[in-house]
């Protein structure tokens, strides 16, 4: 009697087995897409929250300087969509000159806009407001781009689009979080990790007895220098003008200094913060050859070109930190690296230049919260 029972139920097992195979062979990809879309939706919610919070923070900061809530909100909403069209590179001749022109234009529009929206702010605060606005714009852009691909992927059912967004989501969230955490630093005018270069320059100048009174303003746009006499050499210690948040145009300032001292500059040393590799210690100092400057191109090109044309040795000293550290409030480990960086600059000067030489020492970075 019992030996006939397996046959009674075997059809259920067979049905379940084939059902399982059919389900996963026909709808496996759809189930996976559904999972990916849910993950993107969760990430998108987080990105949206960060974009909204940063916008609110920007509104709260701007309205302290002379305009009402509605006017500020409307103005910021309008500015979040501002775009810059990169120059055509099909004909690469002169592309950097055109890019530089566009970046100048963009900067002018930013400044004009901030002045309009915060008429009672002084120039230093203006620069911090510009930075605050830029962070808000970045967060809004990340949110809108991810939302675009999420909706597009959902509409078209394209696995390729959905998969790419889902896979990039952790990195996008990490980047957005870094900027989101940094907005307080920009609105309050605190020094950020990227400000290491200008900080080294000012501390170097002070170490050799040159104070803010000795600072020569505007050798380039928002860039000046300290003429420092050290170890029998003349050093032009160059940085953007603070304590407002600006990176200035240090590359063109280096070019101007080289042109003003034709044939006399023996070496160009650049100091900057650099992104560390995972596993490296924050505050680690590295040295190398080349111009340490992370601009879109024109500034770095100006330094390289002037160094090559005049046969000037060019080297870089960088302090490592992660992206969150570079845009967030300066970490103690980075600040503690400053004396060691100054010591290495001294070594470079003594080893690779002669007494009587002229040297350009350029501190690259955002000067927010770092006085001259």
């Amino acid at each position, binding site marked *: 009697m*019992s030996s006939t*029972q*397996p046959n009674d*139920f075997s059809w*259920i*097992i067979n049905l*379940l087995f084939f059902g399982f195979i059919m389900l996963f062979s026909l709808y496996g990809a759809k189930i996976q897409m559904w999972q990916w879309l849910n993950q993107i939706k969760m990430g998108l919610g987080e990105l949206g929250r960060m974009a909204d919070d940063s916008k609110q923070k920007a509104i709260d900061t701007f309205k302290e300087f002379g305009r009402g809530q509605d006017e500020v909100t409307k103005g910021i909403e309008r500015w979040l969509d501002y775009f810059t069209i990169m120059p055509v590179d099909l004909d690469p001749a002169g592309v950097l000159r055109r890019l530089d022109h566009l970046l100048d234009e963009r900067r002018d529009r930013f400044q004009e806009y901030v002045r309009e929206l915060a008429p009672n702010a002084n120039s230093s605060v203006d620069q911090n407001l510009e930075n605050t606005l830029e962070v808000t714009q970045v967060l809004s852009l990340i949110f809108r781009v991810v939302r675009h691909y999420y909706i597009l992927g959902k509409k078209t059912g394209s696995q390729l689009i959905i998969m790419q967004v889902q896979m990039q989501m952790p990195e996008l969230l990490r980047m957005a979080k870094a900027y989101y*955490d940094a907005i*307080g630093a920009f609105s*309050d*005018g*605190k*020094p950020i990790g990227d*400000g290491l270069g200008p*900080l080294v320059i*000012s501390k170097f100048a*002070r170490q050799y007895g040159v104070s*803010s009174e000795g600072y020569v303003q505007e050798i380039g746009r928002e860039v000046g220098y300290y003429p420092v006499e050290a170890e029998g050499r003349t050093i032009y210690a160059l940085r953007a003008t*603070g*304590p407002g948040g600006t990176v200035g145009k240090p590359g063109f300032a280096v070019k101007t200094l080289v042109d003003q001292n034709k044939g006399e500059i023996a070496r160009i040393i650049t100091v900057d913060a650099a992104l560390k590799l995972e*596993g490296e210690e*924050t505050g680690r100092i590295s040295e190398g050859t080349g111009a340490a400057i992370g601009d879109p191109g024109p500034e770095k090109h100006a330094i390289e070109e002037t160094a090559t044309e005049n046969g000037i040795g060019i080297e870089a000293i960088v302090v490592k930190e992660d992206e969150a*550290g570079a845009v*967030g*409030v*300066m*970490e*103690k*480990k*980075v*600040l503690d690296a400053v004396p060691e960086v100054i010591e290495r600059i001294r070594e470079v000067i003594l080893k690779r230049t002669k007494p009587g030489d002229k040297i350009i020492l350029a501190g690259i970075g955002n000067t927010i*919260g*770092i*006085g*001259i």
Partner: protein
Amino acid sequence: MGLLSKVIGAIISGAGAFILFYGMSDPNMSWVWFFIGLLVISIGFQMLTAGGKQKAPKPPPPTITEVKCDNPTCDFKEIRDFQKGDYVLKPLDAKCPKCGSKMTIQGVYIVKEEDEKDKINV
């Protein structure tokens, strides 16, 4: 609710394991019990692992302002909370309480401590 659902999840998982192993001994229905057991275990595990509390984001570390006396022979140093308007190399009106010299802000920073759990040692 979190703990209760986890306890129920553990009980269900246990029941699933019981069905799976003891059901296998029934020669006629072993396949059916096998599937039912797997299904019950997966429901139990789902309850065990789901609904975990989202980690509350850590508050950012406080920003510190470091003030030092300008007199190179004086070692006076003051560490205080950041105040709006502070910036590095800002000369202060306050005089050094130790020697009466001028003072300057020499640092504005945070002390970030890396979470041991996030560290991957290679």
